[in-house]
């Protein structure tokens, strides 16, 4: 199940070469605006990014599902660049935080400073106060700083000196980390990993895509890529599209299917820790957003199966024996999917 490398561009759970639906077997909602926006973002990112379609589509799904994304990949596969370009397509405040080992929570959240003129403390917001926050190399900050993100990522506000400061909608954290380098890094706590809607494994491009990257660079397009990307969606647009996604229809048996899928991670022999109910919610919200991107007003088991690895892989812990054997979390998720009957 190469979910991370599949194309989400089809307008159904069925492949795009299937005949287009005719009434009454057609969407009851208008997804033209949503799909036009998604296509425009893909187009804008395609000006700079070669390939990585699955990454872009999962990022779009996360934006619509109102969830944070953790991008994991080796250096040089355009994790940070993709996140920066995606932020440029959204007409919302953007900030980037480079996590370092000496970073303190106040460097992220903000701090209160004393004003001699008024003899009062004044809160100076930190870089977290933006709509799209790119946290580069999130695992380089110690657990103390990482823990500062718990409240803001889940509850969308921070509390400082007894005062609560809400984030503005949309609020999206895009974090990157390198899976290979271990020196000078701190493993993210499970509680924080659970707050990411998706963990997307960013892989290497294909040979053809790499040739295209080389051709573009050789032709001189490698110098000024960021300015070529235009804004597509405003904050109000994003809020409206999210509202539409929330109204997606989910058949009751599919809710049971999601619950069973996530619940089976808690009883699997290869897993030391299963996924939490927050994973079920993430899978539901993600599937609703994905089905809307695919042009349907209802969720299918295909949507759930497609997103399961991205939703579950960072929320489960393998037993030490399986870890030493080289089993990957995706293998276990795939096995769980294969053992579960699709409601039909």
């Amino acid at each position, binding site marked *: 199940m190469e979910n991370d490398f599949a194309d989400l561009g089809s307008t*159904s*759970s*069925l*492949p795009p*070469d*299937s*005949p287009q*639906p*005719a009434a*009454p*077997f*057609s969407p*009851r909602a208008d997804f033209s605006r949503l799909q036009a926006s998604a296509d425009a973002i893909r187009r804008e990112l395609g000006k700079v990014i070669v390939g990585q379609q699955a990454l872009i589509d999962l990022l779009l799904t996360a934006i619509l599902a109102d969830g944070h994304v953790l991008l994991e990949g080796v250096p040089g596969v355009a994790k940070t660049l993709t996140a920066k370009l995606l932020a440029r397509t959204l007409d919302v405040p953007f900030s980037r935080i480079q996590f370092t080992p000496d970073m303190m929570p106040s460097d992220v959240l903000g701090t209160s400073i004393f004003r001699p003129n008024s003899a009062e403390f004044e809160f100076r917001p930190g870089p977290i106060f933006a709509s799209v926050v790119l946290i580069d190399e999130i695992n380089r900050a110690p657990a103390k700083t990482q823990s500062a993100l718990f409240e803001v990522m889940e509850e969308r506000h921070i509390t400082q000196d007894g005062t609560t400061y809400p984030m503005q909608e949309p609020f999206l954290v895009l974090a990157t980390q390198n899976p290979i380098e271990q020196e000078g890094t701190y493993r993210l706590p499970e509680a924080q990993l659970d707050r990411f809607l998706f963990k997307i494994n960013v892989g290497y491009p294909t040979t053809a895509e790499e040739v295209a990257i080389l051709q573009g660079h050789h032709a001189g397009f490698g110098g000024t890529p960021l300015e070529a990307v235009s804004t597509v969606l405003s904050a109000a647009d994003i809020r409206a599209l999210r509202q539409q996604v929330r109204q997606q*229809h989910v*058949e009751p*048996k*599919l809710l*049971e*299917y999601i619950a*069973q899928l996530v*619940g*089976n991670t*808690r*009883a699997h022999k290869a897993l030391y820790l299963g996924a939490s109910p927050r994973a079920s919610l993430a899978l539901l919200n993600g599937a609703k957003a994905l089905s809307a991107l695919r042009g*349907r*007003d*209802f*969720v*299918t*088991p*295909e949507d759930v*199966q497609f997103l399961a690895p991205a939703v579950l892989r960072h929320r489960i812990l393998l037993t030490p024996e399986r870890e030493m054997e080289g089993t990957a979390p995706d293998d276990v998720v795939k096995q769980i*999917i*294969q*053992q*579960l*009957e*699709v*409601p*039909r």
Partner: protein
Amino acid sequence: MPPLRRSCCALLLLASLGEPLVAESQSLAPRQLQLAAAPEQVSLRRPTAERLKALRSQRELQYEMEPVPQTSAWDSFWYRFRRWLGRLLNRPAYQHGWRYLVYGAFLVAFVFIVLRLLKVDLTGAFGRNPQRMPLAYTTEGEDIHAVDFPARIAEAEAAGDYRLAVRLGFLSVLKQLTDRGLLTWRPEKTNADYLAEVPAGPLHAAFGQVARQFEYAWYGELPLTAAQYALAREARLALLQLLTPHAA
């Protein structure tokens, strides 16, 4: 005790011990001489045949092992079990309280066997994860080989439950394609998986249309009128007609 009296006692003791030793050595010498002179006078006594037969018939003088009767493994197990049980019950400790432990063990074993027969899952009580409980899926309907589709579809149509009729119609199509070897039925597969198995051509397109109609009707919970259901039924029948050359 004075030294003089002590010396006298010692002498008396030595005298009393030494006298029999001398007497013994004197009595041994004539017997050895008698034996040395006796061999030609020794007469061997042989038992008579009757005497040998009588001796052989005595149980104490029969040294051959009795043949062990051939028993099955099951009989051997029960023999050993009864022997073990007999030993256990005859122990003195059993009479003082251990018997209650044995009663308890037998009771637990009995309860365990009954629960196993009733298929009651008690693994959660022992700190282990319980077995997965099946969802309330209509698994009978999912087993496409165990459903009488024409009758069930006719029932759904008669009841006006067109959504169910579309679902049953789609499952019947899956059964037809499976029977013809055009796809492999597995409950965990999605419609896209099935569509990928159907060979390209008119059949592929027709199956895609039927699958899409099923998804909208079933997952989308589309309320269908009789006229709208007629479209789905027509598409299904058209697909089944395409299957005829494959059957041939």
